[in-house]
């Protein structure tokens, strides 16, 4: 850093601000101001036709009441949690297992990697529609396969039409869709582990499981932390598949936080209440991310 007279802009500084102006102006207009506006709206009654009226904490106390009486927002929180618990651990374990298999030096790795990644680039609308057809109670592929594999012992299920099965069905589809993404990140993490560590471990007579416990798992910790944080944030915002496949039904069994925000804001025109919900979601994501980072920060290992 060269010494600089305060108050005087250098040519470099002027150029820097010039380069930053379009980006920062857009952030100001479409992120910063809207966040402040949303915070204000969360204390208002607002239906977009009439101007907002200040109602203090009433939106938030309504959320509190809803939580106490197990209303729709409570259900959406519960469903979102169920979605997160259903997708994240299983999705991560499967992704890690696949990445380990792909990292074993087989031929045809590129082909497998491409195949597993296909659902990731396909839109949620498209995969949701295909899976709706797969889950079709009368003519769907899944019921057929289950009947065939069980020799007729499993009778056709209604899947998305059954309150107890709809969320698991959405979870299964979402794991299928997200697997390739997590797998590719794990693969990148695995490829960053130097070979000589494994060679030394083999010389010392370490079993594959010991090698995994002592080398792979600890060195993958930053990767695992990254995937975990990203997946948690993603799961708390789940929307498109719910909107397309069930629209929150049957009987609110699959409604999620974002689905409730969307419905309240744009179907019921309760934009103040929806903004309050959005801030509850914001707080939730912030808290979860901080807890995750806290938990996963510790014990980072570095081998030379």
């Amino acid at each position, binding site marked *: 850093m060269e010494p600089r007279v305060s108050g005087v802009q250098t040519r*470099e*500084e002027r*150029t*820097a*601000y010039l*380069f*930053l102006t*379009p*980006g920062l102006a*857009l952030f100001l207009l*479409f*992120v910063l*101001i*809207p*966040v402040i506006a*949303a915070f204000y*709206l969360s204390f208002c009654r607002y239906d977009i036709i009439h101007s907002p009226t200040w109602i203090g904490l009433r939106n938030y106390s309504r959320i509190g009441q809803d939580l106490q009486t197990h209303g729709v927002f409570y259900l959406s929180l519960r469903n979102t949690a169920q979605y997160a618990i259903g997708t994240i651990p299983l999705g991560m374990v499967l992704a890690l297992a*696949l990445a380990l298999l792909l*990292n*074993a*030096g*087989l031929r045809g790795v590129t*082909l*497998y990697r491409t195949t*597993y*990644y296909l*659902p990731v*680039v396909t*839109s*949620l*609308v*498209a995969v949701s*529609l*295909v899976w709706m*057809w797969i889950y079709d109670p009368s*003519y769907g*592929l899944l019921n*057929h396969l289950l009947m065939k594999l069980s020799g007729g012992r499993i009778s056709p299920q209604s899947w998305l039409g059954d309150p107890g099965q709809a969320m698991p069905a959405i979870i299964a589809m979402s794991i*299928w869709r997200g*697997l*390739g993404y997590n797998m590719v990140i794990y693969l*990148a993490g695995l490829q*960053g582990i130097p070979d000589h560590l494994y*060679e030394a471990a*083999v010389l010392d007579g370490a079993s*594959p499981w010991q*090698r*995994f416990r002592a080398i792979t798992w600890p060195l993958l910790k930053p*990767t695992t932390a990254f995937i975990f944080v990203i997946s948690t*944030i993603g799961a708390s*915002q789940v929307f498109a598949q719910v909107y*397309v496949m069930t629209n929150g039904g049957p009987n609110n069994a699959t409604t999620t936080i*974002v689905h409730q*925000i969307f419905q309240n*804001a744009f179907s019921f025109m309760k*934009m103040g209440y929806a*903004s309050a919900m959005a*801030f509850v979601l*914001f707080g939730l994501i*912030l808290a979860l991310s901080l807890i995750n980072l806290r938990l996963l920060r510790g014990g980072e290992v570095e081998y030379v």
Partner: protein
Amino acid sequence: MTRRVLTPTLLHVILALGAVTMILPFLWMLSTSLKPEAQIFRFPPVWVPSEWMWSNYSRAMEAAPFGRYFLNTIIFSVAVTLSNLLFCSMAAYAFARLHFRGRNLLFILVLGTMMIPGQVTMVPVFVMLKHWPLVGGNDWLGAGGHGLLNNYVGLVLPGAVGAFGIFLLRQFFMTLPRELEDAARIDGCSEVGIYWRIILPLSKPALATLGIFTFTAAWNEFLWPLLITSKDSMRTLQLGVQVFQTQYTTSWDLLMAATVLITLPVLLLFLAGQRYFTRGIALSGMKG
């Protein structure tokens, strides 16, 4: 060098079973899209159509204005991609290479916006676009019309720059050697010239990565076009197909034909530009 407990054959069997699970829904979609209607509602289902109904595709195209949706999606995706490439690279250049007061603070603020879920800003941005002054029948106070709703500008502008893109490009710019720039500076090249003639050409791989990511995300975007467009003539493909689905709930042949059509372009893009996808993950995923 790792685990010898599993033989290569067994590994291949496991991986192939997984791959079949990945590919099966796509085959099912393709198979359904080419079946005659009578074969759709058959239990147990048939995989190979008795007759290849290519006409399902033209029937689907006629049932809704998919040509228009396609055009809208192209305009939206291309505009979002180009503006992100330009604005993100400009900001990233300033953050990576130029000295100015408040640089670190601004950079942290930009990264901080990634923590804010889009659902928080969604309502005010919608209101702001609706009341944008002097467009879409609005007066200078923003009242009277629909503003930038049902408008390409309204569709593109809120997503025209992204913190992730700035971060990705800044990381890449920092790895570029400084010698070329210093030589150009001595030769009297301006900062704009250095950015345009040296940094951008050297960053083609990173720009391609960001471009291909942004394009795919925009092509597949659902929630934002759902909010901003209500007119049929402004809908994107994802939206069009979803609306199509609510109207033709049981026409799985037409629905799957439409689904194939909206999926094919990104699948082809992915197959052609695969290495950029993997590189993007390597660039963004690990340490900051």
